[in-house]
């Protein structure tokens, strides 16, 4: 579809009765990309989506779709279509009538509407369900109808508000693949909102991680997962061990005096002048645990607090003398350390990175 457009947010602020819901967001959504706004509830991601669709107006800042500002335009004048969290399928209309709604509003002639709706039913695997009332279809089917109703009007931007939130786990996996396929085939700009990090990582070309009305990090799923820019992102997307450290001329000094080489890269590395306090981050998958005496790599000594077996992997949780919590997640064939024993938690320096303290 050639009508696909990019979306630009410039310094968008939304204030509700003194409360700052969105505290200055600038974001470039490339044309044809699948961008996810990821964050906990109340972080401002839904407000942002509602401002793009026109249900809320920014207090200040600009929103442009395809280069033209849409601020002040009512929802029905914007070339966006939204998939609602509760689907909002019109209960007094059939599946077909729901799909045809937007086309009817656009005064398309009847044969053309019928053809488009039939094609959409086919594409979503809903052929034969067109005459059903929306109360007579399953949750997964309702989700597809909601998607189809938005797609059939060929919007420049498709907005998805927690699109898979109401589905059970198995259906959610299935629909993730389906969404990915639709995005690939249609080449449309998708902007989704979710609090589910796995969904965001699976679906998106770019993820904007939001917290307290701001974007903490904007990047590809790989960037966001492998090199989170802040403590919040490191903690919210996946799990991370966060160890306080001080930068020294020849490397890093950890809380107990252990010295490590300075990892390359990482958003904190830029400002890592000698003497600066930083945080060393490392994913649990990269952390190995050894009995205290047998360690070959430098690491942190910690008392083992909990050993949890989960089939595919074994999780070992320890706490250092300074109180830092460390987690290791390793496919566990080797004999685990005993609870209460002293062990060394170590990792390859390249697997770690530095973020601001």
């Amino acid at each position: 579809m050639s009508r696909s457009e990019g979306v630009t947010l410039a310094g968008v602020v939304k204030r509700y009765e003194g409360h700052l819901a969105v505290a200055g967001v600038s974001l470039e959504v490339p044309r044809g990309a699948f961008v996810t706004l990821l964050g906990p509830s109340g972080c401002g991601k839904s407000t942002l989506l509602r401002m793009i669709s026109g249900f809320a107006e920014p207090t200040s800042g600009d929103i442009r779709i395809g280069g033209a500002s849409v601020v002040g335009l009512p929802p029905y004048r914007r070339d966006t279509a939204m998939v609602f969290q509760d689907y909002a399928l019109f209960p007094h209309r059939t599946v077909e009538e729901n799909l045809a709604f937007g086309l009817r509003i656009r005064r398309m002639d009847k044969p053309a509407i019928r053809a488009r709706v039939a094609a959409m039913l086919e594409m979503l695997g809903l052929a034969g369900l067109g005459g059903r009332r929306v109360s007579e279809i399953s949750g997964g089917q309702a989700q597809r109808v909601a998607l189809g109703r938005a797609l059939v009007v060929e919007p420049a931007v498709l907005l998805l508000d927690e699109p898979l939130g109401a589905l059970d786990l198995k259906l959610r996996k299935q629909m993730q693949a389906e969404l990915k396929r639709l995005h690939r085939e249609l080449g449309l700009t998708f902007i989704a909102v979710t609090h589910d990090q796995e969904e965001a990582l699976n679906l998106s070309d770019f993820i904007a991680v939001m917290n307290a009305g701001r974007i903490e990090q904007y990047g590809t799923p790989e960037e966001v997962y492998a090199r989170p820019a802040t403590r919040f992102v490191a903690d919210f997307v996946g799990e991370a061990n966060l160890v306080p450290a001080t930068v020294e001329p020849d490397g890093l000094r950890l809380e107990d005096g252990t010295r490590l080489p300075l990892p390359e890269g990482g958003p904190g590395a830029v400002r890592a002048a000698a003497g600066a306090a930083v945080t060393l981050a490392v994913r649990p998958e990269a952390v190995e645990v050894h009995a205290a005496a047998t360690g070959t790599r430098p690491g942190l000594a910690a008392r083992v607090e909990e050993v949890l077996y989960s089939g595919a992997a074994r999780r070992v949780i320890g706490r250092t003398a300074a109180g830092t919590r460390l987690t290791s997640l390793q496919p566990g064939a080797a004999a685990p350390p005993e609870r209460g024993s002293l062990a060394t938690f170590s990792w390859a320096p390249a697997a770690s990175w530095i973020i601001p303290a």
Partner: protein
Amino acid sequence: MSLRRLLPSAGLLAFTAYAALIYLFLYLPIAVIALFAFDSRAISGLPLAGFTTQWFAAAFADPALAGSMATSARLAAASALLATALAMPAAMVLAWFPLRWKSAVLALMLGPVVLPPLVLGLGLVMLARAAPGMIGEPAIIIAHATMTSSYAALMLYSRLLGFRRSYIEAAMDLGATEWVVFREIVLPLTAPALVAVFLLAFTDAFGEFIVAWFVAGFTKTLPIVIWTSLRQVISPKINAVSTLIIAATLLLSVASQLWILRQAGRARES
């Protein structure tokens, strides 16, 4: 069987017996009117003298009675239509728009509901002194529209609070303007409530006596005719008319309320 096993059913029995008594209390007067409407005695009383339908025929042959019924129906239809039309837009605004003076507006809506009708009637009489031409049918329509539009607005407001906002947003998102949203989404989904509210307003206006009596002038509505006849011995013709009207009232209010309640049930399911 032990006493413990019997206790719950004894409780239920007591409840059922009590309920039966209450329903008897509520429907005894209605049953009595209907009974005497079909009894041939000219002065209603026991024992019954025999079955007849002559009072119905006599009632419709009585020009004053039949005429007042037609007048009441006409005026009630006009005021109910007016009340519903005034109430619906206001209810939508109250339910869906942020309003700074919402409490004040709600209080103003509640005013005519709780104001003693006698006071409203006297007030309207005073107002009509400024426009004596209004006395009669226009004043009755105005009075009833005032009384019913306020609770019509409150009832619709209460219904619309449960209306899913995302239906409206989805329609707007697909290109529907406010007016199209109203026509395509809001109206079809609230039609049962609107019909029910109209029917209640109609029923209320049809039977309202005191305010109409104050501003009626020479207009005779059915309640005014009945009131006049209450000063004498009640004619069985009145019983016949009342039976018909009560049957219609019960039918209308049952139908409209069942409609509302069933709709509410369906909305909860989806």
